[in-house]
């Protein structure tokens, strides 16, 4: 598809902004949908109504909210470290756009399919923590700083099991191209043969996106807002947007790695892809609205003492079996 963009615009310098716009639009629409869905799911689990006023079932409510956020005055507190404070939301958001260009939505729908797409995805998703730390440090606020520090520790702890569980898939598929990984799963999805890796991946991914019960960096009952305490208006909106976009990304990655991507009977590929992604997103919401938050040291202990050994063992067993077969 990237090639198509270049053909349409004639030059790669026009094609890149166009592609970014398309991705932003895609993310925006999905994020708005997910925010709406989150509010509806939360409401129904708590026996409430959720948004009902704007649009059918309140579907336009989140759009109104976004317009409100955009129209708000951008406040820069006087005590912040200006450069870091301003650059942080952008640093957080840029890698997300890059990652999005790598996902195969269906057999032919992909911006660019690299051989090492998986490495890129993991590398870019690791960059998010830089943005979070910049926000926390630049805000010059103790709560933000605590949030940022917690965020870094958490990300370091959960990158490891995340990558280890992904490696098991890579060993089985013998490729790092997302497109080929999906193609490998044409008979059975990897969740059947790699259930442990799938579970570890999903838990680590939930922690990676700072979603409850791992929302320790922004725990609002402890750290008020964590790293984004000092942000308001659309700058806060970007953090919010980034959180939901990274939800889409990890769920899309899980779909590609374990659920067989776009593959499925009868319906067209991208429909299957979205069904799977949205199911995983629902699962994440279900977690969030059921569990209390873990404490920081428990979270680390859980990662280092349970997830990492399990993922290593899983990897070892996978490697041995693959070798033997």
């Amino acid at each position: 598809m990237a090639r198509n963009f270049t053909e349409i615009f004639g030059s790669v310098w026009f094609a890149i902004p166009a592609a970014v716009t398309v991705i932003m639009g895609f993310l925006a629409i999905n994020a708005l949908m997910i925010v709406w869905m989150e509010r509806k799911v939360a409401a129904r689990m708590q026996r409430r109504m959720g948004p009902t006023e704007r649009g059918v079932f309140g579907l336009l409510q989140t759009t109104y909210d976004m317009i409100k956020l955009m129209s708000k005055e951008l406040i820069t507190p006087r005590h912040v470290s200006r450069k870091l404070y301003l650059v942080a939301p952008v640093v957080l958001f840029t890698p997300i756009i890059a990652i999005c260009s790598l996902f195969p939505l269906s057999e032919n729908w992909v911006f660019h399919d690299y051989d090492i797409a998986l490495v890129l995805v993991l590398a870019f998703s690791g960059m998010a923590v830089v943005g979070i730390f910049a926000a926390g440090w630049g805000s010059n606020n103790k709560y933000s700083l605590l949030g940022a520090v917690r965020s870094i520790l958490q990300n370091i702890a959960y990158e490891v099991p995340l990558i280890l569980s992904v490696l098991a898939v890579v060993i089985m598929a013998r490729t790092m191209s997302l497109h080929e990984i999906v193609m490998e799963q044409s008979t059975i999805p990897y969740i059947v043969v790699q259930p442990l890796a799938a579970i570890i991946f999903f838990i680590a991914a939930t922690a990676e996106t700072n979603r409850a019960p791992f929302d320790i960096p922004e725990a609002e009952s402890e750290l008020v807002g964590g790293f984004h305490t000092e942000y308001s208006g659309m700058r806060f909106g970007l953090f919010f947007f980034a959180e939901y976009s990274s939800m889409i990304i990890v769920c899309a990655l899980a779909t590609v790695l374990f659920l067989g991507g776009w593959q499925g009977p009868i319906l067209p590929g991208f429909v299957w892809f979205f069904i799977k992604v949205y199911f995983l997103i629902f699962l994440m919401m279900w977690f969030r609205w059921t569990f209390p938050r873990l404490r920081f040291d428990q979270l680390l202990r859980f990662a280092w003492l349970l997830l990492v050994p399990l993922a290593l063992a899983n990897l070892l067993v996978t490697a041995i079996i693959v070798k033997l077969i």
Partner: protein
Amino acid sequence: MPELIRVGRDEDRDTYHLNMGPQHPSTHGVLRLRLHLKGEVILSADPIVGYSHRAHEKMAENRNYIQFLPNTSRMDYLSGMIYNVGYCQAIEKIIGLEVPERAEYIRVICCELNRISSHLLWYGTLLMDLGGFTPFLYCFEDRERILDILDLVSGSRLTYCYGRFGGVTEDVDDKFLSETLAFCKHLRNRLPEYDDLVTNNVIFQNRCKGIGHIDKKTCHEFAVTGPCQRAAGEKRDVRRDEPYGIYDRFDFKVPTRTGGDCFDRFMVRVEEISESLSIVEQAISKLPVGPVMAPKVPRKIAPAKGEYYFAVESARGHFGMYIVSNGTEIPERMHFRTPSFSNLATMRRVLKGSTISDTVAILGSIDIVLPEIDR
């Protein structure tokens, strides 16, 4: 206080002060905790109260005994009925006023419902502090039913002024009784669901077990009362030890635990909910017919000169009223010994060595109501 916002002085570069509150999501009102931290570990904690001081004791000296009635439920707005009725019972005891049987039973029903509603709110807010939002709304849903029931007789939903010297303002009707019984049944079915969602949840247990120990010694030194004291293993309940009203006629257990940590306090309160339910059911089954107001209530309430003390068990512990009368209609002095005041004071000792995450759990588990501390 410039000292508070400076990070790291030369002598202790890696420690800092953090003001938690007065505007903070989990300080339950306007409490400020001045924390001295090293990383996330608390070196010392100092609760600072008084942000909602309304001088109820001063107000009491400027009005007569009857006019003080609406103030009582505003001290602790979560167990307003208990405070209100307790104040009535204190004055009745002082002036020797007999209360009709039916009114006594109605008071017990309403007070226990109020206690359940207070515990439910505490349940929800503790879970919210721990990051679980859904149990909070489940508790509010059930609490809402209690408020509706109390609204049926008292006409208010939060700051009740239902008790009067010599009885209560309104008689209960069949609708009240049937709704109360239905609610008791509903909540009994509901509690196992709470257990599944919260009590047995491994994350919740890990968050609560082994933190915030308030042991017997601390209880003793700080005069801690209520569920916090019972969680430490001291079997003390004003309703049982110094029965007031007609509490000696009911059969109820005083739940105790031994550990004194957050989880024990949690379990004590959960068990208290079911004990209160049983008291409500007993009271309804025994409810006699008759008037709800004493036939002869003196128009002028002027207790004999002297000092009086009367205590009731509020949802948070020992609520004592110290009343000094000079023989006129205006009290000379009223002092209120409120439970949260003593319970919160323990935080200076208990919070030491815990982390910020534990702080919110510990604060949530002792169940403070700031207006009651500040009075």
